[in-house]
Each structure stands twice: as structure tokens, then as C-alpha cells.
């Protein structure tokens, strides 16, 4: 049987080598573009998911998030809990947060946002909000009478430029009035404005724990959440287990577990869009290969008949076309990989600017392999059908073809 494969390879190679170079290059370029198209949108979606995940870790949850046990509103005795958590192997630092509802007033405008109290020395170890100051400075620790606001809270003087209701472009150094949910009203100086590009984070405000205690008129030993940063060397699951084994009774979740179901649904929707995009690309590939092989085989009807007449088996001829498809797909995929590599390099240097951050497309090697495999499979099917159909023709009718 091997001699048949030899003949297929021989015919395929000669056909590619002696056929039209322009046509071959065009076909390779089309497959290359199809492959790139298959990869590009998923990579942007992957990059977008990565960006969202990173923002979640950096600004909202850190690596592990501890929330009140079910049915509880607060984490009680949080000072003791922090000491417990900090002793667990793999924990780098834990930071307690206490969120309280408030209405902020300035420039005759008001916004109702959560005001979160935190300990800056702990917070800088678990999140990176302090690195995202658009204006002013992050807390050094122990500040009183000062507040940090997110960029959407400060907003713009022109309300049409705002995504949300804002304080009309309040600036660092300005005074704002804060009416807390417990009825306390205080004036604060804006110490800084942060810009994380995470909508949730940028539409909030921060005060120090000391300021919270002043508002609450007493020591506060309860938190609404505790953020835990781990050492990179430790698996999150292992550290989480360590926290539970250390006696943490509250709800303990890794950042991935903490992502709400709404976000998970968004990611699933991205996955559906991704699949549709891949399907469309594959349809394009099928159509291109089908047309290419149909035209090629139609133009070579007489040659096919000659080959059959001199005793070349039909299967050998079909395989020679499939080998040509394989060659075109291989070259096209290589062209696509080069293009993808170029795109990756470009976007790494020049990230896509999205409203929620700088997005670098992520090219997943597994996705590259999977897409290439799909491309090959559908191309072979698309090439087989016309080759099979045209080689069915009788020798004499094929010989009569012009």
C-alpha cells in the first residue's frame, strides 16, 4: 500500500511546485488570515478576562477574601482574626475593610457610594490602589479628616462627560461633606483621587480606620471583609485550607470563587461569542478550501482522467489533493502564527485602551493548537468532497473535458 502513498505525495508535490505560484500564495494567505481571525478575537476576550481578573485581585479581593459567615453582617473581633490569619503559612498580609453607606456632597451635587475604612499599612500590602493615584496621595496611616475618592466619584465639571452621577469634578484639597448611614455628617478634605478603571472601585471612597472609629464614636473591631494576600509560592487552595484549619469561621473564598455569578455569566457569554467567531472562521475556511479544490479539480478533470486511464487509483488521486490541502493549511497556519506573533508583540508594546483598562490580547498556546487542529480537520473535509466528486467521473467523460 505504501507505493500508493508515494504516488500521492509525488503528484501533490509536483502539482504544488509546478502550479501557479500566485494562486498558491493567495490560498496560503487566505488560510493564514482565517487562522489569525480565529485566534484574534478569542485572544482579546482572554485578555479582557485576564484584565478583569487582575483588577479583581488588585483592587477588590486580593488573593483570598474573607466575608462574614452566612447570616452575619460583620466579621466580629477582626483584630484577633487578622492575627490568626497572618500566622497561617502562605499568608503575606491580611487587611480588614469596613464599608459603610454614605452620601457625599460637593459643588451642590451629591453621590451615594460606599465609603470603605481601611488600615493603609495593611492595605498597601494586599491591593495596589495606592499605585493608581490619579491625583494627590494615598493614605500614609492614621489620617483624620481626609478622604480618598475614586475618579467616577470626583467626575467632571461637565456632567455629560460622566458615566455616573459625580461630584462635578471635585479636586484634591477641596472639601466635601459626607453623610454616613448612621446619621453622622462630617467634612473631609479630598486627599487623593484614584483611578483603577474598575467601575466598582472607582465609584467608591476610602477613609482610614481611625476616621471610622471617630465616626462610630468608639473602637471598631468588626469588618465587612478581610482581604488576604498570599505568597506566590503557595497554592491558593492550600492557603484557604490553612485558614479554615486555623479556625477561621467566616466565609473564605479564593478570588475566583468570590467573583459573582453575574461576572461568571459574562465570561460564559464571552465564551459563546468566542465559539461563534470560531465557527464563522471555520465556515470561511471550509468555503475557501472547497472552492480552491473544486476549481483545481475541475480544471484538472482531464488530468484526473489521464491518471486513472494509466492505472493510478482514484484514492491515490484524492489523497494527492488532500496532501495539497494539508500543505496549504500548514503554510497558512505558519503564516497565521507569524501574524499572531507580530500582533502579540505589537499589542504588548501598545496595549488596547479600553474604558476599563489597558488590554493585552492573550494568545493561549492550547487555543492555537485547538484552532489549528479544527482548521486542518474542516479543510480536509472541504477538500475531500470536491476531489471525491470529480474523481468519480468516468475516464472517458473526463478525457473529453476541455
Amino acid at each position, binding site marked *: 500500500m505504501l*507505493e500508493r502513498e508515494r504516488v500521492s505525495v*509525488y503528484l501533490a508535490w509536483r*502539482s504544488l511546485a*509546478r*502550479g501557479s505560484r500566485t494562486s498558491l500564495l493567495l490560498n496560503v494567505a487566505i488560510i493564514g488570515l482565517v487562522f489569525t481571525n480565529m485566534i484574534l478575537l478569542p485572544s482579546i476576550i482572554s485578555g479582557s478576562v485576564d484584565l478583569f481578573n487582575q483588577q479583581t485581585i488588585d483592587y477588590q479581593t486580593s488573593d483570598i477574601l474573607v466575608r462574614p459567615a452566612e447570616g452575619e453582617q460583620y466579621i466580629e473581633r477582626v483584630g484577633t482574626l487578622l492575627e490568626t490569619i497572618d500566622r497561617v503559612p502562605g499568608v503575606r498580609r491580611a487587611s480588614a475593610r469596613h464599608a459603610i453607606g454614605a452620601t457625599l456632597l460637593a459643588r451642590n451635587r451629591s453621590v451615594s457610594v460606599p465609603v470603605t475604612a481601611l488600615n493603609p499599612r495593611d492595605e498597601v500590602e494586599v491591593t495596589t490602589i495606592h499605585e493608581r493615584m490619579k491625583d494627590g496621595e494615598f493614605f500614609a496611616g492614621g489620617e483624620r479628616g481626609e478622604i480618598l475618592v475614586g475618579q467616577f466619584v470626583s467626575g467632571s465639571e461637565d456632567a455629560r462627560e460622566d458615566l455616573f452621577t459625580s461630584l462635578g469634578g471635585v479636586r484634591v484639597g477641596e472639601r466635601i461633606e459626607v453623610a454616613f448611614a448612621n446619621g453622622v455628617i462630617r467634612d473631609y478634605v479630598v486627599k487623593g483621587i484614584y483611578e483603577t478603571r474598575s467601575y466598582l472601585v472607582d465609584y467608591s471612597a476610602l477613609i482610614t480606620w481611625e476616621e471610622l472609629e471617630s465616626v462610630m464614636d468608639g473602637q471598631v473591631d468588626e469588618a465587612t471583609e478581610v482581604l488576604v494576600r498570599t505568597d506566590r509560592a503557595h497554592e491558593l487552595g492550600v492557603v484557604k485550607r490553612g485558614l479554615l484549619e486555623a479556625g477561621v469561621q467566616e466565609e473564605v473564598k479564593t478570588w475566583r470563587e468570590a467573583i459573582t455569578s453575574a461576572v461568571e455569566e459574562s465570561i460564559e457569554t464571552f465564551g459563546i461569542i468566542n465559539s461563534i467567531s470560531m465557527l464563522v472562521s471555520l465556515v470561511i475556511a471550509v468555503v475557501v478550501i472547497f472552492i480552491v479544490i473544486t476549481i483545481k479539480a475541475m480544471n484538472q478533470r482531464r488530468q484526473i482522467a489521464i491518471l486513472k*486511464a494509466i*492505472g493510478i*487509483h*482514484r484514492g491515490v488521486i484524492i489523497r494527492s489533493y488532500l496532501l495539497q490541502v494539508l500543505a496549504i493549511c500548514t503554510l497558512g497556519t505558519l503564516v497565521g502564527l507569524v501574524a499572531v506573533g507580530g500582533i502579540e508583540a505589537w499589542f504588548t508594546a501598545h496595549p488596547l485602551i479600553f474604558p476599563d483598562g489597558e488590554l493585552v490580547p492573550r494568545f493561549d498556546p492550547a487555543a492555537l493548537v485547538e484552532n489549528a487542529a479544527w482548521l486542518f480537520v474542516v479543510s480536509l473535509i472541504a477538500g475531500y468532497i470536491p476531489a471525491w466528486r470529480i474523481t468519480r467521473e*468516468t475516464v472517458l467523460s473526463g478525457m473529453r473535458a476541455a
Partner: protein
Amino acid sequence: MMIRVDGLRKTYRMGNVEVRALDGVTLDVAGGEFVGITGPSGSGKSTLLHLIGLLDEPTAGSISVQGVDVLRLTDDERTHFRLTRIGYIFQDYALVPDLTALENVFLPTLARGMAEYDGLERAAALLRRVGLEERTDHLPAELSGGEQQRIAIARALVNEPALLLADEPCANLDTHASEMVLDLFARINREFGQTVLMVSHEESHQRYFTRTVRLQDGVVVDDSGRASGDGDDDQARGRGDASIYPVPFHHDHGDP
């Protein structure tokens, strides 16, 4: 007997009209004969050759080649039979345009499973025999009609077929090229005992044939110079002193 055709009929349907291309042809061809099939246009010459060459199927009748009832072969077996036992030469050469002269002749040896080196050596030797040693690397489009037909003859011979079928091989050639081709056929037949069945409507070609079968309206009307008695198939191979083939073939035992 090399070829035994009995009661062969071929009917085509053209719309509602039934056309009888062959109407009961019976013919025996012994090994080593050079048979010319002549007759006017539409007499069924090419149809007969197509049927013997397994390129078409008859409506009725039987065909055996070297004792094999070829009509009972499967499609795959027919293809293999054409590869190993029949050399077919077409009026319009029917060379593969993407292959050079050498590659066109080499291809059937590759399909037969011959080692590449031996196949190329055999193809080159045959091209030397037909006087085209200087044109081995040329594509068919770069060659004259006579040269292309000689390549087609070399290709038809390369697998040592028992039977060489030629369908008006000189129809597209000028007189000089035609004589070269016919001389080549005659020499192959004379020196190597190759059985040749050639369709031709040229009266002048008859002097090359050892036997002429004349068809008219799908029936044999004249069969002059017929060899007496049953010819020995092996007579063909054994007659020539020298072999046309420089590299011996290991004949397939599994041939149908």
C-alpha cells in the same frame, strides 16, 4: 490468446435515440500481433479499443485479456489491470501537464511499486529508445506533438504491458512525425514481440500492420492477414533478442 472478444455490443442513448456503436463484434488477437483497426468515422473503432482497454463497459458480450475475464473485475482491479497489463496511447497524447517527460514515463513505475532509482533509469532508457534523451526535463507544453506522442508511447511501455493499445496516435501529427511514431510501433512489435492494437483510419498506415480488422457500422466486415491458429502469448515476449527494458520487473503475483 492475448485478446478474446465475443459478441461485444455497446449501445449509447442520445436522448430518445439509441445508437449502436458496436453490434456484436467477435475478435481474437494472438500475442505478438500488430493489429490495425480501421474503418470510417462512427464505425466503432475507438469504442472497441476503449472496451478492450477497460475505459468503458459494454452493453453485452465478453472480453478476456490474457485469459482474464476483465468484465468481472472490480473497479479497483480494473485500474490495477490497466497499470500492469495495458499500455494505452491516446490520440491527443494525454500526458500529465505538470510532469516533465521523464516524470510522465516514471509515474507508472512508481505506481507499480518499483524503486525510484530503477524506475527513473527505466524511464530514461525508454526515452532514449524513442529518441528523446535530450528532452527528458521538458514539460509537455514545451514539446512538439510528435515528441509528446513518443513520450506517451514510452509511458505506455514502461510497465512492460502485455498489450499496447493506440487510439489514432498519428491523428494530430504531420506526415514525418506520423512515420516516426509508426516506425516506432513497428519496431517495438518486430524486435520485442509487443502485441499492439492500433486504431487508424489512414489507408497508408496499413502497411505497418501484420493484420487489419475493418469495422463498419459496429461490426467486423473484413479481417485480413489474421494469424492462423492460436497465438502463444509468450511468443510476444520471447521473440525479440534484446529487451527494451533496461531494468527487469518483478512481476506482481497478485495480478488479477
